[in-house]
């Protein structure tokens, strides 16, 4: 199966490490994909609260472009950012379920010489890697099983809600299974899908920091060595405000936060550069957990 990828704005700015690690991992696993040509901003979650039809039209332009790029069949469009994934999924669903939305949006697309026919299925890279490619195959390709590494998987609120396409909306386990396939140990915690505050850290910072504090504190309390995210904004929030949270709330939080694709890359033996590890503020020290396959048996 060949995929189309939709990087979205974040992956070209604060989330560059996410895209770099996706590219590296897909290449290493020989998953073929090509980038959606001439893609535009998905509108994020804010535009839809201003003008629903315009917001759908903006997002649907990407879906229509995908159909232009791939002549026939169902198109699997990969959207790694949670907000992009949610907005594109929502657009796809609304255009499918509500004929009036479809008519209005297509009328707008028509002006640009575009039309959407409903062939796109929006996918998240976590879903693609675990459910299409498969955990067994990933496991086989692992060069450095991350034995003993305790990982708190953090899904955030948008990937499985409200469209629980590939996992349970309240208690997802996909990333935890992946962590196991990499040889590491998932930390079971009940805050997997609790909100990180999203853009509140930039607007009503106190509210945003409070939410991040709860997540970071609990992950650390449960003995996690690292937190994994699948969203650029979650990663940014959780990683960048730790010092400020410590100062305001007198906490001692100190935990690296990486993208799940970065951890896959490390286990596959890809270089730090390829995975964009140098872009993280808190570089996780994973060397002590990396045991080349086979070595364990000799030890």
């Amino acid at each position, binding site marked *: 199966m060949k995929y189309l990828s939709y990087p979205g704005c974040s992956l070209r700015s604060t989330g560059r490490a996410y895209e770099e690690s996706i590219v590296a991992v897909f290449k290493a696993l020989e998953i073929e994909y090509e980038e959606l040509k001439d893609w535009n901003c998905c509108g994020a979650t804010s535009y839809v609260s201003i003008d629903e039809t315009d917001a759908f039209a903006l997002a649907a332009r990407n879906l229509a472009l995908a159909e232009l790029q791939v002549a026939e069949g169902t198109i699997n469009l990969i959207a790694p950012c949670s907000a992009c994934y949610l907005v594109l999924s929502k657009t796809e669903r609304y255009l499918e379920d509500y004929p009036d939305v479809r008519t209005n949006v297509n009328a707008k697309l028509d002006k640009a010489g575009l039309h959407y026919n409903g062939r796109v299925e929006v996918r998240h890279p976590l879903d693609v890697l675990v459910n299409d490619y498969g955990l067994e195959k990933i496991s086989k390709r692992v060069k450095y099983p991350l034995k003993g590494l305790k990982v708190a998987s953090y899904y955030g609120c948008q990937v499985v809600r409200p469209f629980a396409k590939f996992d*349970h*909306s*309240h*208690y997802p386990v996909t990333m935890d299974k992946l962590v196991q396939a990499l040889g590491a140990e998932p930390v*079971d*915690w*009940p*805050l997997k899908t609790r909100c990180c505050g999203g853009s509140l850290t930039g607007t009503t910072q106190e509210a945003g920091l409070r939410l991040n504090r*709860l997540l970071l504190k*609990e992950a650390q309390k449960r003995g996690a060595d690292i937190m994994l995210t699948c969203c650029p904004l979650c990663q940014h929030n959780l990683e960048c405000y730790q010092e400020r949270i410590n100062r305001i709330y007198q906490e001692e939080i100190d935990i690296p936060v990486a993208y799940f694709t970065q951890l896959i890359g490390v286990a596959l033996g890809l270089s730090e550069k390829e995975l964009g590890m140098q872009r993280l503020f808190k570089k996780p020290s994973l060397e002590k957990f990396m045991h080349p396959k086979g070595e364990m048996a000799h030890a």
Partner: protein
Amino acid sequence: MHNYEQKEAVRIGFYICHCGHNIASIVDVKAVAEYVKSLPGVVVSCEYKYMCSDPGQELIQKDIHEHSLNRIIVASCSPLLHEHTFRTAVEKGGLNPYYFQMVNIREDVSWVHTDAKAATEKSKDLARAAVQRVFHHKALETKHVKIHPDVLIVGGGIAGIHAALTLANSGKKVFLVERQPTIGGHMAMFDKTFPTLDCAACILTPKMSQVKNHPNITLWTYSEVTKVDGYVGNYKITIKRKPRYINEELCVGCMDCIEKCVYKEGKTPDEFNVGLSKRKPVYIPFPQATPQIVLIDPEACIEFKSGRCKKTCVEACDRKAIDFNQKEEMKEIEVGTIILATGYHTFDAKRVPFYGYGKYPNVYTSLEVERLVNASGPTGGELILRDGRHPKTVGIIHCVGSRDKNTNRWCSRTCCMYSLKLAHLLKEHTEAEVYNFYIDIRAAGKSYEEFYDKLLDENVHFIRGRVAEVSDWAVRSSEEGKLIIRAEDTMIGIVRRIPVDMVVLAVGMEPQSDSQDVRRLFNISCSTEGFFLERHPKLAPVDTFTDGIFIAGACQGPKDIPDSVAQAGAAAAQALTLIDTGEIELEPNTAFVVQDDCSGCRTCLTICPYNAISRDEAKQKAFINEALCKGCGTCVAACPSGAIKQNLFEDEMIFSEINGLLENTPVVCC
């Protein structure tokens, strides 16, 4: 019967009913009567205020004699309401009742139209269609079948038990088949019953032993129905009796074998205690199990697994009742009626992972708590949690797997009341603080609301709000080591975190997991959620669409004990009605195969929804069992050689009806 062609001239009597104002206020009944008078074959055409009244019926009978009428049409209400009335009237007048035809101008015309003129024209069209149709009507005979007086009851819970005793006490022979090794069902597992708080076992076990000892009841436990043949009044049932590896005639239930089993401790989760305790490979479900006969679980028994057991159980049994070579046995019985009381299944709490069942040891289902507070339960009635603690605070979460779009949409009806009961029992056993998290308290039943009031007086806390999650996520030091229930308290509009030691999930009621298989076996229907479908939700709540098969208890929908017992009584009464009538009249609208035209292609066999068609292998022709045929017409339409016809719906009748209907319709060219 279809060959009795009437050669005499057709003489039609047409009667249009005012139905008070119901019809006459919209349809100009005089004009319709006047119009019908002009149609060929019509001898009498008149209107009357209430055709279904005695004078109305007598009018028909008088005209049959005076005018030698041989076809009768009444234009009034729906045939569902009065077809039988008028057919009987026609028969009393000396005519075969199937020369009667009904035209519905109330539900189909006056109640649904506002334009009087158009309604009158439509009534004329419908009347004309009937006039043309009755030319082809034939005299038909009603078939009667005898009802075998014995009854099969499937399921030995409280509903099955009650139905069995009701029938047996009235002198009918009953076969009660139960899949588990004992009867008693879910009720036997309960501690006390709401709202009276009398002990479930105390009121149930006397009935269980009555079943066992009743001369009119044949009780087969650890047995399942595997085949159902026949039709109302004449069912042939095959029952599989699973081997207990114990000779039922010899065992007296002394349980010496259990004590002497090579296993000193049980290792298999005990089904009766919902896995809260362990049982041995040779066991009896519970002390009052009925019949009081042990059984051996071959999955757990060493002798079955390796053949190298010391067989201390055999030595211990001085009645020599243990038989490792016992085989499954098939029984065949004949019955006239069947009552299905197959019960329900509790919702699997693991389907809502955010409530932590199976993850946090101190999260329990309501059924587990019933066993936990029971004096004969795994802890002897002492409330000890899985981690050995005694709870000081308990949270009961209502509507788990009920009233939820993501799981089951229906209200399980019993959970509010049993949650209140459990709250009372938990307080009584532990003096713990008990919190109920509810959406609405549904206490609709005799003395139910009063019971709720009593609980409020007992200082049980009620928080209105659906629980978001149960977790071990402690934010404050007071929450450490506790389970935290997070819920919006919609009475005060804030999100609350209540730390508790024990969580009880009030799981809802679901159809049995194999309800679809049972449905197919007995050829009845299920509603969309999988509960057995009643013939009419209000007026035929225990009948099914298959004659002679009745349903009772929670297999029809969530129900508490009083309602299950009431339904069981109703189902027994329905079965008795059939049995005491002795025979049943069958509507003659059945299909039949014109043997010369049948090519024996089998098309009809596969599509008949009632399994009414079989193939005569010698003649290579299809044959329709009139007692099973419901007159749906599917085979008539499907037969590629047009060899199947249906009484009252033969082609010429339908085509002349259509012709009559369309005769005055202007042809629109396009």
